[in-house]
């Protein structure tokens, strides 16, 4: 029998080792898997390379992981924001490495990794500092740059509902990077607000097929926790 549902967030993240590359879902706080990250902070893994769109917002989730000094390098598109104080402090102190990528290239590179592609040619970034040194090619009269896939050891994502096979549906704009990060990581771990029986998710609306997900944890949603 396949049962990917784990008893706790702590169990789900227990084998994440020092130096791992981890994709973390979310756009700002929407879709940020706070409870998996709290468990990861407790677990103690360090020298992590993190792939996320931002570099932490406020004091929870990725911001907390950075505050605790666990992140050696971050690959993201938009680190600087009004509430990115924990990243800003580490960055200005020279304690965290930043690799900046245009947001669409970040998404395409993650998707390419999940899809088993060797690389992609993208027009985004051509002629800019963010593609300096990349191989270029003219395709149908448009200049493109070569970008390589982004793989990860683990993906930590948030979804709305999941079943024991790992099928997932999301909630509103919290979907963002979840589906492609699940594809790109060797081990994708989802925190869901609710687990359901096989067959309860309409197969026509499943967003992430279970094959892309290795572990699920049911946690009270942020909405419920706030209530």
């Amino acid at each position, binding site marked *: 029998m396949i049962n990917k549902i784990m008893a706790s967030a702590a169990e789900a993240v227990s084998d994440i080792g020092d130096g791992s590359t981890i994709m973390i879902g979310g756009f700002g706080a929407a*879709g940020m898997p706070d409870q998996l990250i709290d468990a990861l902070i407790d677990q103690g893994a360090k020298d992590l390379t993190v792939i996320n769109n931002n570099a932490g917002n406020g004091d929870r989730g990725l911001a907390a992981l950075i505050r605790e000094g666990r992140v050696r390098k971050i690959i993201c*598109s938009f680190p600087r924001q009004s509430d990115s104080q924990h990243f800003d402090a580490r960055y200005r102190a020279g304690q965290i490495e930043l690799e900046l990528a245009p947001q669409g290239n970040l998404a395409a590179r993650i998707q390419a990794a999940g899809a088993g592609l060797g690389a992609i040619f993208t027009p985004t970034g051509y002629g*800019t500092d963010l593609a300096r040194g990349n191989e270029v090619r003219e395709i149908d009269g448009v200049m493109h740059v070569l970008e390589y896939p982004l793989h990860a050891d683990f993906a930590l994502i948030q979804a709305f509902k999941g079943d024991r096979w790992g099928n997932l549906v999301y909630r509103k704009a919290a979907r*963002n990077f979840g589906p*492609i990060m699940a594809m790109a990581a060797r081990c994708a771990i989802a925190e869901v607000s609710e687990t359901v029986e096989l067959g309860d998710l309409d197969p026509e609306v499943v967003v992430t097929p279970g094959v892309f997900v290795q572990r699920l944890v049911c946690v009270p949603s942020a909405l419920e926790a706030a209530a």
Partner: protein
Amino acid sequence: MKRMNRQMMAYRLAQDIPDGAYVNLGIGLPTLVANCLPPDREIILQSENGLLGMGPAPKAGQEDPDLINAGKQSVTLLPGGCFFHHADSFAMMRGGHIDICVLGAFQVAANGDLANWHTGAPDAIPAVGGAMDLAVGARQTFVMMELMARDGSSKLVKQCTYPLTGLACVSRIYTDVAIFELSGGRAGVIELVDGLTFDELCSMTDLPLIDAREGASA
């Protein structure tokens, strides 16, 4: 000269978005355009974080942390709107499915080069977001900005000195004093605010502008 304030700039730009257009509004100044769209037109707003058919801000108390725009502000979804993941969202932009994007800018060159992500200052933390994808992927890129920088220099320039976002991608610039159409490497002036002459605008920008206003002799 009657300079337009930001609300007036947003209103003026909104008049040029046609019925049926799919539009992405960048964070900052362009966000104001959302509140100025002509009510008799059906214009669909895309947000990079996975929304199509984005609606206005919710009433106080109705905010949903899972329903935000690219600037992480609370928004709503119109009937007929939908959600999708990031690779699909940027496929919409890069694949030429978005008719118009509106971006802010530090500088725009007369040839359409855009600089809006980094000042290049040594202590600045750079952030690019989706700007480079929109710049190359949207069918038309409009810029909305005040013409003059705080130090009194023109932000419409011969050549950008800030790091570039995209090459030759901007087709129109909506400013507080004039509207410019960029084509063939030159900047044409298609509208001026009252009380400003074409010659005065040329001296503000220090560029060889073309008078492309209706009725102007070429």
